[in-house]
């Protein structure tokens, strides 16, 4: 009686845990800022390759990097900055051959819809009491914002008034709710809240800050290698470029 009970429970667990999936499935780990655009790109891909089911795992690029480094069964990695991709490439976890930059982004200075901010130099003005920035240590948009402000000689003044968000969405919310008079976010994020914030100025990519690039690559241990290669190639198609453009991503200038 006692033995039988154990056997049932153990075999039930074994059955559930070893259950397999994955016919022709492609798993793409991607930066959260790409959510909407990639969902649409996934649909476009399935329209061309109906046999493949595309699934996404959205998260912070750093966390996605850790998962891949530790052997998560991911096929393609799309990062929000080259830093994470470089680390994986160095460790041999992604294939250097075929690695691409598939899109870019712009950094913008934003203000609440009714705010009076007119430009970068207003950041010094006493009327601006709080500036929403993302944490430069952990969030890519914060890093680019720090570069830009330093370049324009505004960093020390801005730092004293800064409220730091732990992700770009939080930073955006500070401004959208009027808790900060201004903030710096990616253009694609600002376009999400056009009802509440307006774009005051766009930083000059390449001059104010290093270009914002989104790299993509095939994961070395990709369970579905063939589809992974096809998907990364697909990211460079004109159909994908059109989708990305519609969501506010910046086309890549040649050579960058």
């Amino acid at each position, binding site marked *: 009686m006692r033995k039988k009970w154990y056997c049932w429970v153990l075999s039930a667990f074994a059955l559930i845990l070893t259950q397999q999936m994955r016919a022709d499935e492609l798993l793409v780990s991607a930066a959260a800022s790409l*959510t909407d655009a990639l969902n649409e790109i996934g649909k476009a891909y399935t329209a061309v390759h109906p046999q493949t089911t595309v*699934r996404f795992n959205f998260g912070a690029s750093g966390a996605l990097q*850790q*998962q891949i480094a530790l052997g998560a069964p991911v096929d393609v990695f799309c990062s929000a900055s080259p830093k994470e991709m470089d680390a994986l490439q160095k460790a041999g976890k992604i294939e250097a051959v075929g690695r691409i930059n598939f899109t870019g982004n712009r950094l913008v200075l934003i203000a609440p819809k009714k705010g009076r901010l007119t430009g970068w130099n207003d950041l010094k003005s006493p009327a601006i009491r709080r500036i929403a920035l993302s944490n430069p240590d952990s969030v890519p948009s914060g890093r680019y914002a720090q570069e830009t402000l330093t370049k324009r000689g505004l960093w020390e003044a801005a730092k004293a008034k800064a409220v730091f968000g732990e992700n770009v969405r939080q930073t955006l919310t500070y401004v959208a709710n009027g808790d900060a008079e201004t903030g710096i976010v990616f253009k694609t994020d600002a376009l999400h809240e056009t009802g509440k914030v307006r774009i005051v100025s766009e930083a000059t990519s390449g001059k104010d800050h290093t270009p914002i690039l989104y790299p993509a690559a095939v994961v070395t241990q990709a369970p579905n290698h063939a589809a992974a290669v096809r998907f990364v190639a697909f990211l460079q198609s004109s159909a994908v470029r059109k989708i990305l453009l519609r969501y506010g991503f910046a086309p890549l200038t040649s050579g960058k």
Partner: protein
Amino acid sequence: MDLAPLWLSLQVAGLATALMLPFGLLAAWWLGQGRGFPGKSLIETLFTLPLVLPPTVVGYALLLLFGQGTAVGRWLNETAHVRLLFTWQGASVAAAVMAFPLFVRTASAAFAAVDRELLEAGRTLGASEFDLWRQVTIPLAYRGLLAALALGFARALGEFGATLMVAGSIPGRTQTLPLALYASVQAGHDPDALVYTLLLTLLAFGLLGTLGAWQTQITRSRGDR
């Protein structure tokens, strides 16, 4: 509006509770016996750790353990064919680990409240330990055990940090309600985020409310007798 995260959450929390139950019952019973032994407080502390550690610490540890980098991970993946990274089963294991301390704490209190003398009496009458467990301990402790079960299930349902690390956030496969909520906020889908928030609150409220009402009812019916 996609309700898949709701069903997945119930599935993940269900398996997590089932996984946790045998180990949790044994651990709780063992700790609740009241006998002191060397190292007992050390083990109690160890069992309580997931309750106070940030879930991401547990998640990272599990990620390390289940990945290809360790012998355990390689054995699980290659020999046992148990794939826990990025699967809903993996999410269950993470949730089970996180729910374990809450279950053990509550359940061991229930076991500790069982009258020792009844067990002694049973022993003098020649009952085996297993029979005592089944016919004396469990029936006397079952109210507390049920509370422990409900709390464990609720904790597993709300688990976020460890799950995110181990299972990722894959819609339709590993994206449970808390993960779907986070993803909605990240992507700026505020209406979805609101629905998920309401769903999670209602689930937790319903679960704890039912438990509370049921316990009051039992207490009252016993009092009337």
